[in-house]
């Protein structure tokens, strides 16, 4: 085996799909965001696949597979071994393998959404795993989340404040929460969504098209 020389590859290598991470606390609406993004991205002719990182069950993967929104074969589940942060940050190899496998099975795929397992405000995605990552929080989780300045809030490429419709019911001043979020992000974008009704989703897709796929 010592005398082996690597076999040279021939032909051009296909362009890898862009990989977008979606992180955020449990219950903030990450799966709902994926369910809204799938038809919105498909409507724009973008070839996609999805990876979910469920914490204790395959519920999120099954929910997306059974949604009727996407070919179930294009949805992969990666177990997090009770480590939702590790599987996207310190050791994202299983997610990378799952993404590589989706690219092998669906050569035309342009964009892979990677939904993190529910986590806290300290999670980040490895830059070796994703090209872009968004962090989803929700108004019902408390309007003090932006002030806590966790890495997800501060360093994500996009911060999404979801469930805007609940603001009046949980005593949150949405405008102030929005301004405080923008003030801690050094100019990086903050978008507001209500995934239940699909509000704000087109703005998220616009940003993905522009910043990730480099389409005007």
């Amino acid at each position, binding site marked *: 085996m010592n005398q*082996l020389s690597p076999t040279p*590859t021939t032909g051009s290598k296909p362009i890898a799909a862009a990989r977008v991470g979606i992180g955020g606390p449990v219950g903030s609406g990450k799966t709902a965001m994926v369910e809204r993004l799938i038809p919105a991205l498909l409507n724009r002719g973008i070839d996609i696949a999805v990876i979910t990182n469920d914490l204790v069950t395959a519920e999120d993967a099954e929910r997306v597979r059974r949604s009727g929104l996407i070919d179930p074969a294009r949805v992969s589940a990666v177990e997090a071994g*009770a480590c939702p942060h590790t599987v996207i940050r310190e050791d994202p*190899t299983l997610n990378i393998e799952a993404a590589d496998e989706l690219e092998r099975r669906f050569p035309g795929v342009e964009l892979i959404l990677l939904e993190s397992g529910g986590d806290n405000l300290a999670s980040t995605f490895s830059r070796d795993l994703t090209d872009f990552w968004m962090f989803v929080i929700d108004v019902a989780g408390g309007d003090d989340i932006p002030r806590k300045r966790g890495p997800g809030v501060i360093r994500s490429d996009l911060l999404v404040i979801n469930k805007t419709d609940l603001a009046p019911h949980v005593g949150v001043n949405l405008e102030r929460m929005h301004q405080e979020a923008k003030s801690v992000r050094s100019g990086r974008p903050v978008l507001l969504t209500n995934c239940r009704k699909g509000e704000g989703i087109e703005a998220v897709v616009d940003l993905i098209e522009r910043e990730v796929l480099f389409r005007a």
Partner: protein
Amino acid sequence: MFDPAAALALLQYGDSAFPAGGFAFSWGIEGLAADGMLETVEHLDRFIADHLVHRWQTMDRVLLRRAWFSPDLEAVAATDRLAEASTLAAEMREGSHRAGRALLGVAVKLGGPLAITYRQMVSADPRLGHLPVVQAVAWRDAGLTLEAAELVSGWTLVTGLVSAATRLGIIGHIEGQRSLVNARSVLSEVLAEVPDADAVPSSFTPLIDIAVARGPSRHVRMFAT
């Protein structure tokens, strides 16, 4: 004689922080714990010893050594196919595939020439990519000796099992360290018994195999195996 450079290499590749996906595999612990068959540190110690003596020593180590001594990568692939044929439970095969392919992916990104070529073969054949075979490829690329590769293979299995038990709440962090000390003794004894060159891979861990095989039927499941 103590060789700091070799010891540092062992610390790197044998570290649970080495990013090869090992943290997501419990190799039966999650299932046995769910069935009430693994509840104490004593149970865990026996479970680790079973894994090392009746599976790793006679199966994984034999496959690793065969792959290590292979004259070329075609022979490595033949050993890989033997691993596939020798593993009864589909879930155990799938786990070995996923763990092996994860390690291979890291080895490729680290620039290992054997790993780069073998990755092409693995991509073309779904039977290939079993963990002990990939360990031989990756750690030859990394410059380890066979003895070091075997030690890292056994040790990363042990640390993965103890870590899974800790995360499942079966043991505390201090108990985990005591388990590691106990496992060191078992692994040392096992390593001292070198398999015959013509050894055929085999295992006899029925409880572990059943626990892994039942994984997909469980609603609550945090680990890949």
